[in-house]
Each structure stands twice: as C-alpha cells, then as structure tokens.
C-alpha cells in the first residue's frame, strides 16, 4: 500500500537525514516507527505526505508516486494544528469542501460522535483541551477517508491518562475503516500496544535498523508476559540502534582493562 523504495534524503543544508531506506506497509497494517530523536522519522512521514521530496528513490501509494500531497494520504502532526478561526465542525470538514454541504455536515457529525465529541460542532479550538484538540485533528484527517494515515508522535504532548484514552480511540477509529497507519512514536509501549509491526530506526543518517513483528491478539495489555517479552526485544533493538549496546560493552571492557 505505502512503499518507500531506496530513499535518500539530503536537506539543502547538507544534513543527510535518510539513506538506503526501503519499507513497505500493507493495506490496513499498523506500523509503528521508533528511534532516537533526529533519526529521520518525521522526514520519512513528510516524504510520504508529499510535503517534501526524496533526494532519490520513490515513495508510492498503490503505484502512484508521491511528490506532492495526495488525497489518499492523511497526516496528523504532534501538535493538533487546528485552524483557530474555524469552529470544530469547520476544522473537521476543512478537507471536504468539494462535497455537498449536507453530506459534509453528516460526515462531520458522525466523526464527532466517533471521537466522543458529539455536540462540540460550534466550539472554538481554544476551548478544547489538548486531548480533545488532537482528537479533532485525527478526525479532520480521517473524514477525508485516506487509505494511508500518517501520525507523527501524535500523543507525545499529552499526559499519560489522556494518551491511553487516545490510543484506544485511535484503534477504534482504525477499526471502522482500516486505513494503513504509520505511527511515529518514541513510546515503546505505545508502539507495541497499537502496531502489527515495529520498525526501529537508526540515526546518522536515518535507516531501518530492525523490524519486529507483533502477533499479540488485541486488545493487548501491557502487563501480560507476552507483551513484556516483546517490549524487551524492542528496547533491546532500540539500544542497539543507538549504539548503546556497543557503548555499554566498551565501558565494561574499559573498566576491566583499566583498573587504575
């Protein structure tokens, strides 16, 4: 469904953000991308959203090469990025202006019910809590019925309780239309809770370090042994991606050899 093929991305200032990156997401699959900060996760999503172009290689959705924003691809950013001059209904329906008014209204109302904000049509963005605003932002992306939804650390600015709420809300929304999800997160638990596959990235320049399949049935519980076992594997991979395993080994070696 979403395919990255031999991506290189070098920013105009010379930063080599991604190299040799190939990755394919199946239709309806949820893939979590994790990795240290600066390893190119946001860059990856921006390429898929058509907000930026790879230096070489291609990003494609169902054989359409993405070079500019595409209707089949939606994106949710870390900040809700609601338009402050539109009410909640206006924000959710922002991408639906090509539809007849009645149909747009109907979709917006249904979306509000789905995200648990029925009756908030005419609220202003400034009147929403952070969690509510991010729900609206997710709804805005989903009402356009994208085949691929990209989420760039969508819950990282929220407190733990709100985050857990939104993780479940996201799963419920996904169930309704089963788009392909690419979820960038730095929260290992979140990745395992939601994803079918976790892609661990490695920095400088960014590339795929390891992929870990998660075959746990849903709903998942973070205290289950199987959950914890996978969590350890992912954390281990994450350490490896950051060179921490190597560092730790060499620190120990130093201590052993040093003895000053």
């Amino acid at each position, binding site marked *: 469904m979403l395919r990255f093929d031999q991506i290189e991305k070098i920013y105009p200032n010379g930063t080599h953000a991604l190299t040799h990156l190939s990755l394919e997401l199946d239709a309806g699959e949820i893939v979590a991308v994790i990795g240290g900060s600066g390893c190119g996760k946001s860059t990856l999503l921006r390429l898929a959203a058509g907000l930026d172009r790879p230096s070489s290689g291609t990003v494609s959705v169902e054989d359409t090469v993405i070079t500019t*924003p*595409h209707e089949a691809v939606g994106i949710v950013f870390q900040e809700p990025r609601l338009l402050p*001059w*539109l009410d909640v209904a206006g924000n959710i329906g922002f991408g639906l202006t090509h539809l007849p008014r009645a149909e747009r209204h109907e979709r917006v109302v249904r979306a509000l019910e789905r995200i648990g904000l029925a009756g908030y049509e005419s609220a202003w963005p400034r009147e929403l809590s952070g969690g509510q605003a991010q729900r609206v932002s997710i709804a805005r992306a989903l009402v356009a019925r994208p085949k691929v939804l990209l989420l760039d650390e969508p819950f990282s600015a929220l407190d733990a309780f709100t985050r857990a709420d939104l993780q479940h809300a996201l799963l419920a929304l996904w169930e309704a239309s089963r788009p392909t999800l690419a979820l960038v997160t730095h929260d290992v638990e979140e990745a395992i809770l939601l994803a079918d596959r976790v892609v661990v990235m490695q920095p400088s320049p960014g590339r795929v370090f390891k992929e870990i399949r998660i075959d746990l049935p849903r709903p998942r519980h973070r205290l289950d042994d199987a959950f914890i076992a996978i969590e350890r594997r992912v954390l281990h991979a994450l350490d490896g991606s950051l060179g921490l395993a190597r560092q730790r080994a060499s620190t120990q070696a130093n201590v052993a050899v040093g003895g000053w």
Partner: protein
Amino acid sequence: MARAELTADLVGRPAPAARRARAGGGLAAILTSPLVLGLALPVLLALVWEAAAALGLTSRRLMPPPSTIFATLFKLAANGDLWEHIWITTWRVAVGFVIGTIAGTLVGAAAGYSGLTRRLVDPTLQGLRAVPSIAWVPLFILWLGIFEESKVALIAVGVFFPVYLGVMGEILSVDRKIVEVGRVFRLSGPALVRRILLPAILPAYILALRAGLGLGWMFVVAAEFMGASQGLGYLLVDGQQLGKPDQIIASILVFAVLGKLTDALLVAATRPFLRWKDGYAPAG
C-alpha cells in the same frame, strides 16, 4: 469592587463588576465612567476658554470661544451646508478607502505569497511610500483633472500603503505549520491565500484597515486643499481665506468626530469575524 475598578482603568473598559455597580446607579460610578472621564478634559478646556474670552483675555477674532464655534456649527447645519460638506468628504474617503483597500490587499497578498512578486514590486512600492502625500497632488491634477478622480486617487494612495504593508508582512509571518495544513489538503495559489493566509492574518489586517482609514481622513484634507468647492477641507481653506477661525475650528471638530465614528464603525463591522480570537478586545 476596588479591584474591578482598577481593572476597568487598566483596560480602559468597565470590568463586569464595575458595570454592575454602575447599573446600581452610584454617583461615584457615573463620575468615573469612561465617557464622563473622557469628556472631562475637553469640557474643562472649553469652559476656561469661554471664560477667558468673556473676560477679554483672548482675541475673540482669532480665538473664537466655544459658544461662537458651536453657533457657527449650528448655522452651517441648519442651512444644510454642513451636511453637504460632510457627505461629499465622507464619500471621497469611502471611495478612496475601498479602492486603496482592494489594491493594497491584492498586491500585498501577491507579494506575501510569492517571493518572486515580492522581489519584483516591493522595492518600488517602498520607494513610492517614501514620497510625501502632497507631492502627488500636482501630478494627479495633471493626469486626472481637478475634480473627483484626482482626490479619490490621492486618498486611495494613502490607504494603499498601510494595507499593502500589513497584508504582505503578516502573510510572511504566518505560522508555517498552519500553512502546511493547507498544503496537506492540496490547497495552493488563490485557494491557499483565501482559506489559510487571509483568515490567519485577519486580526492584523483589520488593524491595517484602521490605519488605512486614518490615513484616508488625512489625505482627504490634502485632496480638498487642491481646489475643491465642497467638503470639510474646503471649509478649512475657505475659513482661512475669509478669516473665519470659528469655521476652521468647527471643521476640525467635525473631522475628529467623523474619524472616530468611522473607525468605530469599522471595528463594529469586523468584530463578528474575530469572535474566534481569545480575549479579543478592540481598542474602540
């Protein structure tokens, strides 16, 4: 209560508590209301002036007392002249304002949106902006004649610059993250300007319009100095040539009232568009 009054003073508007107290009808509350406070100084000045004139301390001929000025004002109003002058001046400002606003908005939006357009037109416009308004007068008269066109053109020029600068500058400072939302929904060109950029700059745009309107009232005087036979500017010139200081001061008063009134109208007309803004309080 004391705190509410303090807040009211700080923001120049009655705080809710103060408003309630006034509804109760305390004399102190009435005496400290913004309207009464605002009028206190001019009324006091007028009284002193009137007394000085009555005592023969000032020249009645060069500095007519308020009573004479108001008498002149009433006379002009009664025979209908005043309304005609007000109407023609307001009409000139209105037409010039509309033209200047449309041009300033379009050119400002184009320059803000497209770097190429900006590099092409901005240096020239910045140069033209530095030209003192009166310098245009002879040229506009040559090109457009001494009738309405040249006057409206001059006012439009005055309105154009603050609007142009406001629109361009604000578009350049619109949050890139908000613009990206527009791009994600595949907006570009005019649609991006209309649905993202213009709403985002609206609060600043309205300030620019108010500045433009203020300059419009300034430029109408310059315009009417150049051979008008009607209008408040003409009243000023006429008053000077015929030695009627009461008429000059009366016209100045009318200018003050009209300027304030049209600004308040603009603020009121645009207020519905700013409901979304947190704590928006127009300095009206």
